[in-house]
Each structure stands twice: as C-alpha cells, then as structure tokens.
C-alpha cells in the first residue's frame, strides 16, 4: 500500500528472487562449508607432508575465491536489490528491525573478504601456522555471516515473541534460529564436498585424484545424518500454524517436500558412487549431476521455507501483499484504493471500473503472481473462474484459502477485482443469459364424465441432480428417483386400488426407452429406477414418463409424469472447464478433472489418476450418500456434509449461493425454480437456511459422530451463519429435512416463512413419504413432488410441471383444489377428509 509496484508481468511471481536467491544461497553455503574444507584439507596436506594435497588446496582456493567472492558476493547484493524491488515494505521492515544485525554481518563480510584474499595470496609465503590461522579466521567469519543472516531469514518464518515485545533479540533468536543454524551448517559442509568433487575429479595424478575424491565424499556423506536430525528438529520447532501450512495446507508444496526427501538418499548414493567408482567417464558427469542435485536439494528446502510463510512475508506481521496484519481491518473498511498511495483511481466509477480493477490487481495479486510467467501464473487460475466464482474465491481468502491473505478491499473492490480478473485479464467463462424456447406438452386425455379411474403419479424428488457419470467421469448424483403411482377408482367414495392391477412406466430418451413395472405396496405402486435416465441432447431439464394402469389386459388409466433432472451444475464457476453439453449444461470431464485435482491436493488422494484411466470416480464410495443409502467410509463426512461444508466456506457470502452450484438461476439453462414457493418470493434459504447455516446443520451431525474434518469446517463457518452455531440443530441429510408443517401449522396458511432448523424426525415425515389425514393419498399425488409443487411454472413448458392437474382438472392447481372433489369423488364434498383447509379455494393463483 505504501510503495509503487514494479509491474513485472511474466517475470513476476517470485521468478527473479528464485533465480538470484537459489544461486546465491547455494554458493554462500559453499562459502561457509568450503572455508572449513580449505583449512582442513590444508591441514591434511601438512599432516601427510603431501605437497600435492597442498597444491590441490591452493587450486581449490582459487576456484573457491572466484566463485564465492564474485558470483556469491554479488548475487548476495543482488538478493538485497531484488527483494527491495519486489517487496520494498517488507525489506524496509527487515532493514529497520535488524539494521545492526545487517551491520554486524557486513563487518564479518569485510573480514571474510580480507581473510580469503590473504589466505589465497599468501599460500607458500607464510608459515603454515599463520596461513592456517587465516583460513580459520575466514571460516569463522563466513560462519558468523551465516549466523547473522540465519537469524533474519528465520525471523520471517517464525518471528516468535517479537510479535509481542518487538525486542530485537527475541526476533533474532526466534523459535527456528538454532535448528536452522545447525541445518544450514551441515548443509554447507555437504555442499563443500559437492564442490570438492568438481576440483578433485580433475586432479591429473590418478592415485591422488582417487584419494581426494574419496576425501570429498566424506565431506558429503558425514553430515547427512546430522542434517536429517537437524531437519527434524527444524520441523519440530515450527509453530503449529507454519507446520500445517507447509505439510498439509499449501497447494503445490508436496512435490518440493517429496523432492527434498528423495534427494537425500539419492545424493548419498551419488557420494558413495563417487567414492567407489574410479572411471573418469563416470565420475566427471556424476560430479555435475551431484552438483545439480545439490542445487535442487537446497533449492527445494529454500522453496519450502519461503512458501511456508504464506500468506505472510513476515509471519503474523505482514501479509505477502505488504499489508501489516494490524492495518488490515482499517484498509478493509476504507478500501484498498483509498488507502494505497500509488493508485490513480481513488474511487470507483462505472467508467473506471476496469482501470481500478487493474490497480487492485497490481496491489493485491502481483506481489505473488506473475502475469503469464513460469512461476505462480495467475492467468490459468483466473481462466477457471466465472466472475461470481472469483468473487467467492476472493472472499474465501484467508479462511478457506488460508495460504492467501484475506482480501484487503471492501465489497465493491472485491467485485471490481473479480470482474477485472475474469473478464479483462482473461477472456473469462461468464455465460450470457440463455433464451429458453417453451415446448407445448399435451396431457393425456381424460373424460371427467366417463372415466372410471384416475392415475396419480409422482416422484420422491422433484429435481434430481445428475453429474452424468458416464460423460463426466465423476458421480455425485442423487440417488435415482422412485416413481410412485396411485390408482383411484372414481366414485362417491373413491377407492385406492392396488390389487389385480399392473402399473408400468415408460421413459423415452436418447438412449432408448426405459421400461418397467411398478410394484404394489399397500395403496401405492412404486418403482425405483436403476439409474438416473439421461436427459436429451436437445436439452430440457426433465424427462416424461408415460404411466399406465392395466387391469385384466385393459388400460384403465394413463397419465404422464415429469421427472425433473438437473444437469446444470455450477462447478465450472470455480473449477473451470467448459459445459458438458449444449454449451450450457452438464459437467465436462475437464471440470471433473479440475475438481479431482483439488481433491487430490487437499485430501492426498489419487482420484485424478482414476479419471485419467477412464474409471468413474464415485464419491459415495468414500462419502456416505443418504439419498441412496450408500454407507461410504465410516471416518469420512457424508456426501452432503462434505459438499456443503467444504464449499460453504467459499460461497457463504454469495447471495445466490444455492443456484451458484445447483440449477435454478434466472439466466441459466434450466431456468428459475418452478416451485410455487419460488413464485411467491420464497428463497431456498427460507426453508434450508443460508448456505452457512445449511452446512453447519449437516456438519454438526457429523461432529457429533466425531467425523474427522467436521470441526475444521465448522470453525471456518463459525461466524458466517445467520444463527449462532450452538443453536443450529444437527441433521441427517435426506431424512431430517425442513418440515412443511413448520410454516403450514395445521395445514393453514403460513404465519412465518422460515422453516429452517425444524427438521422432520424421520423419513415418514418427509413430504415425499407423507400421506394425507385419511392415510391413503400421498401428499405428492395431489400437490406434485417437492420443489415442483402445483401450480408449477417450468421455464421450458407451461404444462410440464402441472400435467396431471391439467389432465384431470384442466387447471394447474393441486388435485381437488377449488372444491374440485368431483375429480375423484364424482360429487361435491363438504368434509375436509384429506387435511384441514382442503375444501378451500386455492389461494395462490397463477396470473
């Protein structure tokens, strides 16, 4: 906020630092370990009276001097220059907090240079004792430089008590100071061995060459155990937050951890091979290979340490955006643009939205991301998001995405930045509104005068979510629907028949008809489909089932039922990828692959490999799916809790959080929800709670079952629900759902419009399974399935949602509405048999 941003584009994202720092760090560790190598090798030469070893030591010193003083020294200055350009605020903090540590390091740097020059230029001119003293002074000063730099570097990762007392010494001797010092010292000794190979392998005389190569091998191999021990000490000294960030939370860290772990035995084996194998044809390339591996070894460690600080540049003190933790709240209130010094657009207007977005991008994204570069490129990330998805992602930074700093701006800036990232920086995947052409569906004929039977059909789910596993490769679909039918023999006292009657269904779709008979159970015929039938390519969010009741070989009644199928799933809003079909619906394989990549990274799974191998990843194999009674694994969150619990942390702020993932957005392919309640102005959250409340209710049940992960997700949501977490009742999905009678007390018009937190006790209480007061007719037989209650208003067809009312009553209202008892009873009735109020005039008329 304080300094201008160097707009590096492709060279951003830490590329400059990575290049300069890793070269410097490698050479500067050599400058420390190599100093010890020089004196001990000279001592070896003196002890053995070997002029050849002394000559080798001098040659190695020349190489050492040219490498460490020139490239090592200058890249050290280079790091300083670079960090001051990339993160001036953090550099300023480090300079001011530790100015005298830097100054002390400079004193040792000066003494180091003088000692090394004297050491090299007095070979053979000073007595051995004096010459060795110079060597020891050099090593002592070089190690002291490491000592002081180490304090500052580790302060950035673990500032420890300094955060509370601002005391120089607390910051310097921070929690990881000692393990890091030992780790780096042992690393320096190993690197001395690696560079020793480089000169010793070129000794002309074979015996001496072999002897010195083996000697260098000792330098490489001896400290390995100590290095590993200090690495473990280092890890143990890390505070929990840094440990978690490095070892579990940070995306992309695993390859570096793996690299570091695997390089240890690899370098050890290389060192042994150097000691054993004599042919120069092997040793020479192996020397270079080992040097490269050493470079990667130290590089991976430094990368882990640097990334482990995220989202800070100085842990718990300054975010990577150079905003101090203490300033964040004020900036979020005031706004980034108003707070930052180096911006042109202090306020946002319709005209400058994108220019302001660019400035927000400069301030908040460029400190870590490159724009099209090889490191931390923001472009592929931005391409994954729709503007709304990006808004959710930005809002989740610092919580669900703990490796990124909290978004520092206000709500308006969040929207502007999201729009800039997803519409200007990259072409974006935002969808334009869909024009839906309505189809006309003619209900089957019904002659009120002559018909003897009525066939009422429904499904247990009004809208069935399908991830179309065969196409997408991932299966988190709801359980297939159960079709239900009730055959009513018309008469003054109608009978609901179930004997001597066969009821069959036929669902036509692109893959051929799906046929079957329904099984009679008491008053109802039922058939649970083996799978969710595929919707047609000529997309409509439903299929039509033709249902017939046959008695004695004669069709006595027939009707048509809409089975709502939702394939418009918004995963791509955040996970990217195209739509699966028709350009506007369906989960594509690419989106599925992106989803699984996140899952693999976060949960240490290999599901992406399964997908790539052509196998369908079935979520319920691990996560219990109560919509179909799949048990999953006992120690995993159930599918509903996992899905909503995880995503709520990102989407809780989103005003359209339900239709962000589920079908039903106003401009989507499926169209607005067709349910009566939607038309009356109710939102999903009125019954199910806000996304955070909804997720909390699911997670609390899992928490009570002590499921791993539930606590963490609940913590993320703790402050984001509309109700206190303690007051939200846990529930089992698909069993404990909002109860209609919470609002419709005694079947009367509602006095409240909030059904959240009052759950059905068991499945019998669910609307889909509930019967009227007479105990015979399913609620859904007269009212339609939940979420598609009559009079429904399906965006694709005026008739589709109301086929049976239209067939039997020529009106879209529930069966028997408006005192239409005659549809079954053939005569008017004056007794409210089915439920109180059933003889009233239907209140909510279509316009």
């Amino acid at each position: 906020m304080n300094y201008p941003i160097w707009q590096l584009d492709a060279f951003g994202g830490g590329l400059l630092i990575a290049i300069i720092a890793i070269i410097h760090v490698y050479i500067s560790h050599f400058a420390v370990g190599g100093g010890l190598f020089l004196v001990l090798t000279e001592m070896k030469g003196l002890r053995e009276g070997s002029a050849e070893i002394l000559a080798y030591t001098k040659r190695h010193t020349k190489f050492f001097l040219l490498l460490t003083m020139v490239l090592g020294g200058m890249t050290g200055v280079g790091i300083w220059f670079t960090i001051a350009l990339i993160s001036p605020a953090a550099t300023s903090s480090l300079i001011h907090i530790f100015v005298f540590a830097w100054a002390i390091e400079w004193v040792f740097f000066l003494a180091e240079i003088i000692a090394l020059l004297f050491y090299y230029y007095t070979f053979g001119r000073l007595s051995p004792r004096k010459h060795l003293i110079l060597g020891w002074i050099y090593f002592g000063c070089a190690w002291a430089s490491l000592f002081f730099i180490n304090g500052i570097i580790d302060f950035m990762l673990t500032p420890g008590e300094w955060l509370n007392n601002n005391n120089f010494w607390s910051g310097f001797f921070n929690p990881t100071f000692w393990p890091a010092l030992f780790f780096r010292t042992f690393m320096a000794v190993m690197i001395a061995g690696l560079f020793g190979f480089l000169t010793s392998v070129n000794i002309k005389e074979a015996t001496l060459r072999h002897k010195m190569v083996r000697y260098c091998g000792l330098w490489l191999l001896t400290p390995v155990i100590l290095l590993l021990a200090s690495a473990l000490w280092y890890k143990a000294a890390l505070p929990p937050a840094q440990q978690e960030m490095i070892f579990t939370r940070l995306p992309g860290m695993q390859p570096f951890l793996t690299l570091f772990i695997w390089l240890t035995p690899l370098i050890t084996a290389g060192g042994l091979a150097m000691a054993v194998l004599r042919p120069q044809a092997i040793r020479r390339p192996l020397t270079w290979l080992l040097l490269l591996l050493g470079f990667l070894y130290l590089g991976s460690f430094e990368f882990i340490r640097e990334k482990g600080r995220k989202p800070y540049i100085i842990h718990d003190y300054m975010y990577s955006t150079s905003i101090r933790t203490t300033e964040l709240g004020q900036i979020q209130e005031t706004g980034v643009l108003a707070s930052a010094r180096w911006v042109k657009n202090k306020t946002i207007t319709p005209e400058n939205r994108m220019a302001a977005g660019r400035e927000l991008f400069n301030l908040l994204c460029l400190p870590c991301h490159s724009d099209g570069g090889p490191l931390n490129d923001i472009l592929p990330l931005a391409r994954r998001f729709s503007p709304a998805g990006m808004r959710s992602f930005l809002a989740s930074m610092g919580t669900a995405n703990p490796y990124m700093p909290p978004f520092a701006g206000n709500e308006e800036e969040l929207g502007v930045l999201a729009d800039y990232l997803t519409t200007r920086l990259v072409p974006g995947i935002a969808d334009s509104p869909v024009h839906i052409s309505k189809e006309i569906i003619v209900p089957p004929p019904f002659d009120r005068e002559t018909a003897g039977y009525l066939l009422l059909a429904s499904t247990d789910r009004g809208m069935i979510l399908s991830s179309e596993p065969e196409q997408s490769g991932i299966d988190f679909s709801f359980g297939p629907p159960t079709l239900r039918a009730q055959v009513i023999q018309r008469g003054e006292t109608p009978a609901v028949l179930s004997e001597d009657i066969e009821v069959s269904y036929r669902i036509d779709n692109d893959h051929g008809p799906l046929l079957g008979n329904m099984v009679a159970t008491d008053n109802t015929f039922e058939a649970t489909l083996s799978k969710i039938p595929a919707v047609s390519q000529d997309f409509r969010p439903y299929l039509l089932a033709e249902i017939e009741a046959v008695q004695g070989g004669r069709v006595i009644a027939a009707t048509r039922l809409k089975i709502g199928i939702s394939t418009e799933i918004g995963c791509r809003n955040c996970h990217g990828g195209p739509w699966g079909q028709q350009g506007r619906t369906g989960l594509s394989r690419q989106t599925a692959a992106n989803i699984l990549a996140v899952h693999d990274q976060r949960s240490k799974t290999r599901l992406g490999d399964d997908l790539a191998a052509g196998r369908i990843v079935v979520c319920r194999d691990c996560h219990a799916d109560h919509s179909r009674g799949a048990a999953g694994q006992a120690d995993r969150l159930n599918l509903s809790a996992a899905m909503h619990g995880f995503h709520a942390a990102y989407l809780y702020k989103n005003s359209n959080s339900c239709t962000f993932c589920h079908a039903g957005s106003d401009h989507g392919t499926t169209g607005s929800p067709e349910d009566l309640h939607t038309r009356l102005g109710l939102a999903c959250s009125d019954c199910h709670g806000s996304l955070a409340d909804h997720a909390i209710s699911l997670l609390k049940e899992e928490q009570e079952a002590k499921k791993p992960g539930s606590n963490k997700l609940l913590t993320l949501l703790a402050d984001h629900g509309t109700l206190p977490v303690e007051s939200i009742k846990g529930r089992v999905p698909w069993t404990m759902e909002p109860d209609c009678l919470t609002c419709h007390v005694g079947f009367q018009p509602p006095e409240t419009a909030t059904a959240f937190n009052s759950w059905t006790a068991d499945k019998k209480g669910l609307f889909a399974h509930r019967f009227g007061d007479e105990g015979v007719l399913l609620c859904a037989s007269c009212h339609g399935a939940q979420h598609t209650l009559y009079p429904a208003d399906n965006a694709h067809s005026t008739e589709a949602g109301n086929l049976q009312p239209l067939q039997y009553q020529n009106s879209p209202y529930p069966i028997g509405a408006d005192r239409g008892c005659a549809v079954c009873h053939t005569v008017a009735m004056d007794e409210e048999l089915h439920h109180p109020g059933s003889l009233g005039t239907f209140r909510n008329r279509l316009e």
Partner: protein
Amino acid sequence: MNPAHLIPTPDLLPVPWGWFQLLLSTTFLLHLLVMNIMLGWAIIAFCNHAFKDSIPEDNQLISRKLPFTIAFAVNFGVAPLLFLQVLYGHFMYTSSVLMAVFWLSIVGLLILAYYATYIYNLQFSRLSGLHTLISSIIALFLLIITFFFTNNMSLMIHPESWVRYFDQPDGMMLNLGDPTLLPRYLHSVLASVAVGGLALGLYHDWRKRRGSATAAANIPSAMNWFSYATIANFGIGTWYYGTLPAAIRTVTGASGAFLLGFLLLGITAVIMALIYGLQHRVRYAAGAVLGAIICMVTVRELVRRQTLAPWFSTSELEVVPQYSPLIAFLLIFAAGLSLIWWMIRLVLPNDKEVRS
C-alpha cells in the same frame, strides 16, 4: 497528483537518526574512496591501452589490483547503502522501483565487470590484442553502473518526478529531466579518474620510498591523470553547482552557512591538492584530496537534505529505542577492525622472517 501523497510512511528507528547519519557518512567516505580508485583505474587502464603504443607498467599493476578494488568497493558500498535505507529507505525503495530494470541490471553488470577484471588479471600476459577490449568492457560496465547509481540518488530526492510512474510502471524510468544529473555524473567520473591517478601516484611513491629504482619514473604520469582530471572537474563542478536549484544555492541560515562553508573548504582543499599534484608531491596532494572528499561528502549530504526539505527531514523519524543491538554492533565492529589490523600485520613482510 500531489507528490507528497506518494511518499511512503517510514519505519521506526531503533536509535536516533544521528547515529545512522554518522555511520552513513563515514562508510560512504570509505566506499567513495575505493569506488573512485576502482572506476578511475578502469578508465585509466582502458585509455592507456587505447591511446598508448606500449602497455604502461601501471596497467600491469591495475590488472593485479582491480579485482580487489571491486571487492572492497562493493563491500564498502553495502554499509552506506544499509544506513541510507534506514534513513531514506522510503525514498530510495521508491526510486529503485521506478527504475527497477536499470537498478537490478547493476548486479549483472557488476558480475560481468568483476569476472572481466579477473580475466584481465589472470590472463594479462596472454591477452595480447584483447587488452583494449577487456579493459573497455570493464570501464564501460562500471561507468554504466555509476550512471545508474547517480540516477537513483537523483530520482530518490525528487518526488515531483515520481508521478511519471503511472505512465511507466515497468521499472524503466530514469530521471533524465534532472538538470543536475549529467554534471553530477561527470563530476563523479572525473573525480574517479583523479583519485585513480592519485592512488597510482601513492603506490609508486610508496615503492620509491621502499627503494624501487623504477617507481619514481611512474609518478609524473600518475599525477598527470590526477591533475588534469581535477582541472577538468573544476569546470564540471561549476556546471553542476549551476544546475542546483536556486533554493539550494541561496539557502540561508545554519544550513546555508554549513553548505557554503564546506563547499569553499572543499574547493580550497582541491586547489591545494592540484598545486601539490602539479608539483608531484603525492602525499601532500593525497592529504588535501582526502580533506576535499570529506568536505564534498558533507556538501553532498547537505544538498540531499536541502532538496528533500520540502518533503521530509530525518529528524521526523520516530524512534523506539533499543540500544543493545547498536552496542553489539559497535563492539563487533571494533573487534572486526582489530582482527583486520591483526591480519594485515600477520601477512605484511616481516623483516626478521625475510632475513631468515
């Protein structure tokens, strides 16, 4: 846009600013001396190769010592850069970002120049016709680096020129519009040639006093470099002074008196140094030059303070005292200097050892 709004908020100091000013001025003086020798020698070596028929003895000497001068110029540059950042970091980080590409290129140029000095040194006898090329690369790179440094020191004290960042945020901004930039740069370069020549003269004088028969013959040419560069620098210096804002040239009060006093003292010392130089009285000239440089470093600091006066004063910096790190530094600094002195004593030829 008001440039004052662009100036970042400075960080807190652990001890009062005077400590840092003292350390800055002292260490900068050391850096300046070694840097002048480094750059001056690089230019002299190139000119000798380019314009003389035979390779003078001085070039052999320069080839041996030039890598050391870079090592120490950089090392002595680290300390003042550190203390400068403590006092003026909020100005200097900003100017560095504005000219980031040039500023960072210094590192690469320095590495190349440094290795070139080692090639020049270690391969001197084998370079034959390439002496001019190698020495020109060294001189050119060091001249470019000097220009970038001069540019940054100019840009950091001129916040009014910072607003151009909004049209050029890619780190490619230079402060070429500053009328002081070119004379200031040339002033530094000529001073470097003068000090480089003087350093050669001192070396030959030292050898002469230690009995070298050939050393005395080299003194005149070395002192000529010093004298003629100094004469030329009078002209450049006057130009430089003339380009300074009138507000600085006419500043009154204690600041004005100090500025004028040190400037006149410095000019007087330079005139004395020039007289001694023309007489080839090397050590007297060196003494006068040292006095002149101390005065000029002070003037330079006063000009910076005056230029920044509308925006900032170091006395505004907030202090949250912590003296123990300063004490630790001073103790280690003293110990380090003692150690260095002890090492020098250790390696200097000991008469007894030589005889034995």
